[in-house]
């Protein structure tokens, strides 16, 4: 027994000493899963002699829940637009003033005065994209630029539809199809939305985030999708086409930010500056397949990315609609609709 205790004591002392020794050069990143370029991370590690630890989440809400619980040990998070605003409001982000950093000049001016972080005092662009849907044109050869394909599908697409398993994405698409505003607390309009969704649901085969897999396995022929995912799916199923529905579609931006109380604050600041360098933003885009909001990064992007129809919007397509966070009363209403829909 004594020997065991001594061994344990030694082991923990060693572990403690080694973690203390490593802490000088570490950076803990908490990013969406399958979204961080390994090449870019390697470059950062070599340039600054820092060991990067990477951990993943699958939704803004999951990340928020973990961060709110406290003591995560993470330095960097990559929240979506509305989540940046929420986290600033909740005092969860460190005001690192990226706008005073050396590489800030590379940020596309159109992404500086954004509503979620005006003037960029907390965060910098990571990737941005759109949420619409993608259709196999070999299965359906009509006009694809309308949300009717999801809510009033032609016969060939009935039972072949995947919707994102996401309350906001589904309800927002419904609101657009009916021509109503986002973050809508109007009960008559929401009643119509619920009726629309309930009528369409029997035509949907699945409601799932795994868009690429659903499409490439041919489980479905049309799926609500982010543009980068649509591009990755098209690589394996070339007849897929990303739609820009005339009723409108969601735009979003994920942003790199530093958590309040980050254990490696200086390294985190280095990383923020590093992400505004065109080459590093380009590496990230090549991996995740979205645009990035850093000027001059196209030089470092694969040529295929620069002409991809998922990234270059056609003339005449509506402007992407960046949806602001909804007040709690509206979230409560959305929850009820969602639960009714999925009961």
């Amino acid at each position, binding site marked *: 027994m004594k020997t065991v205790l001594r061994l344990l004591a030694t082991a923990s002392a060693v572990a403690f000493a080694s973690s203390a020794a490593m802490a000088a050069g570490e950076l803990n990143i908490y990013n969406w899963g399958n979204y961080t370029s390994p090449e870019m991370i390697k470059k950062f590690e070599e340039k600054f002699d820092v060991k990067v630890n990477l951990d993943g989440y699958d*939704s803004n*809400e*999951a990340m*928020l*829940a973990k961060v*709110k619980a406290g003591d995560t040990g993470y330095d960097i998070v990559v929240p979506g637009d509305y989540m940046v605003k*929420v986290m600033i409001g*909740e005092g969860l982000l460190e005001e690192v003033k990226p706008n005073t950093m050396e590489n800030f000049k590379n940020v596309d001016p159109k992404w500086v005065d954004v509503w979620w972080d005006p003037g960029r005092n907390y965060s910098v662009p990571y990737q941005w994209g759109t949420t619409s849907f993608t259709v196999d044109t070999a299965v359906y050869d009509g006009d694809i630029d309308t949300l009717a394909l999801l809510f009033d599908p032609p016969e060939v697409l009935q*039972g072949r539809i995947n919707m994102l*398993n*996401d*309350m*906001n994405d589904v309800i927002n698409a419904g609101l657009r199809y009916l021509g109503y505003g986002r973050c809508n607390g109007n*009960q008559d309009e*929401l*009643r119509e939305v*619920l009726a629309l969704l309930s009528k369409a*649901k029997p035509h*949907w*085969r*699945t*409601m*799932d985030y795994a868009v690429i897999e659903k499409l490439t*396995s*041919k*489980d479905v022929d049309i799926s609500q999708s982010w543009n980068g995912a649509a591009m990755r799916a098209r690589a394996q199923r070339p007849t897929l086409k990303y739609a820009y529905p005339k009723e409108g579609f969601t735009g979003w931006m994920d942003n790199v930010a530093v958590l309040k109380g980050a254990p490696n604050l200086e390294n985190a600041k280095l990383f923020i500056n590093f992400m505004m360098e065109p080459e590093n933003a380009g590496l990230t885009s090549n991996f995740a397949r979205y645009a990035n909001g850093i000027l001059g990064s196209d030089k470092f992007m694969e040529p295929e990315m620069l002409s991809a129809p998922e990234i270059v919007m056609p003339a005449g397509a509506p402007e992407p609609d960046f949806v602001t966070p909804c007040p*709690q009363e509206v*979230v409560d*209403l959305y*929850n*009820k*609709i*969602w*639960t*009714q829909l*999925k*009961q």
Partner: protein
Amino acid sequence: MSDREAQTALAAAIAQNRRNERLTRAWLLAPALTLILAISILPLAITVVYSFLTPGTYGGVTWEFSTDSYVQFLFQRDIFDDSLVFNSAYVSIFLRSIGLALGATLGALILGFPTAYFIATKPREQRNIWLFLITLPFWTNLLIRTYAMLLIIRDEGLINIMLMKAGIISSPLTILYTDTAVFIGLIYSFLPFMVLPIYASLEKLDFSLVEAGYDLYANRLKVLFHVIVPLAKPGIVAGCILVFIPGLGAYITPELLGGGKKLMIGNMIAMQFGASRNWPFGSAAALILMALVILVLLANALAARKGASRNG
């Protein structure tokens, strides 16, 4: 020393000894009790407390007492107007989960009993090999096994391709993303939980009783239902409980094989801690689920006691 004095001294010594023993026992139990308190009672207590609080704006809780979470389970203040009306949404989610879990239990029983019987009637030295084969899938993660099942039953999966190549069907059977797929997945995942306890009962079964049954002119069915099944009952009950309870709270299987169109209890609870931002309601729903499970166990214990007193 008189006899009486000696006796008193002895009694005192015995009492002292007992006290010491009790103290030692308390000390020896302390680590285990602390651990149980920390990992089982404490989280449960937090869940109970949270279920009576008010949801925080972006997740978490506000320290304000409220029974809303329990009211919300059965009633809703409004989906659109402000009256308190009965709401069947959560009840129907629970009922569907219970139905699927019951179906899976029945399916596992129908498949599991003959399997257990087959193994129990093999020569002793072969039994371990069969048992090994039954437990083999447990060496792999449940997520991986469920995913493998998805590959087998999907439209362009193994089953459909074989049936189509054989010319039995011309277009693929739609199995994946239906309740059938969830059934198949649940039965597959939990079958060993059914086979093992039934096997344990059957292994102890005295087969001379079966022979006696035949000697008394019982046919095979009669022997099965009047001799074998009653003797295997403890194993059958244990197996059913072991399949039903995890089936009720299953999360991965309905999520992957069901296609996510309908909520099950597990998914509904998970949602409250994510997009719905309602931790108190999630806690309350988890506790209601637990209460259901305890009810099932209680009913079973009562039935067992009744059975025991009848037989004894």
